[in-house]
């Protein structure tokens, strides 16, 4: 069964802290994505990675960085957390080879920055 896991369901951090959000998939997928979901704004793409060590900026990369050292793991880093980064963060993965469009999402991490 397909599985995408995220390191935390809920996280509370202080302004200025460095925050790491981890995502792991067990499906050998090439593509991985980080989104944030906010009421009225929907899902917005922060970064995606089409393969190991490859990354591309999405629509809202400012204030974020990512790391993909291994195929199964895609990390989102908030270098210095700010209150406007309070949000639900969703990770997804996708198999590139067969041309299918399914993205498999993790359960999300709800981050509160105080």
């Amino acid at each position, binding site marked *: 069964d397909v599985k995408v896991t995220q390191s935390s369901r809920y996280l509370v951090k202080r302004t200025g802290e460095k925050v790491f959000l981890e995502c792991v998939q067990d499906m050998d997928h090439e593509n991985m994505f980080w989104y944030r979901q906010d009421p009225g704004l929907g899902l917005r793409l922060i970064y*995606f990675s089409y393969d190991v060590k490859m990354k591309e900026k999405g629509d809202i990369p400012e204030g974020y960085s990512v790391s993909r050292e291994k195929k199964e793991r895609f990390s989102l880093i908030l270098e210095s957390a700010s209150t406007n980064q309070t949000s639900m963060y969703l990770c997804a993965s996708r198999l590139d080879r067969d041309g299918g469009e*399914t993205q498999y999402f*993790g359960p*999300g991490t709800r981050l509160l920055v105080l």
Partner: protein
Amino acid sequence: QKEVEQDPGPLSVPEGAIVSLNCTYSNSAFQYFMWYRQYSRKGPELLMYTYSSGNKEDGRFTAQVDKSSKYISLFIRDSQPSDSATYLCAMRDSGTYKYIFGTGTRLKVLA
């Protein structure tokens, strides 16, 4: 103007009703069209996928794409309380891995 527009709802319907959910988009290069369902406190899951124009049916669900009008729809027949969720449309063009999502429509099916 947003690339993808979706009515946020909420939409409340009685059990057994036919539900119509819609998205409009502005980018004529979009070729891949998806509908995701998201239950409360869960990640979205893919419900339907259509390539280019046309209809696709899967059980009680039908997805339609009208590229000439830049309009996509999801129909749910014989709606059930278990269909209560947020429905998100998503799309992309063939030259990118970047998916554009609508804001989602909240649906409530009343027993």
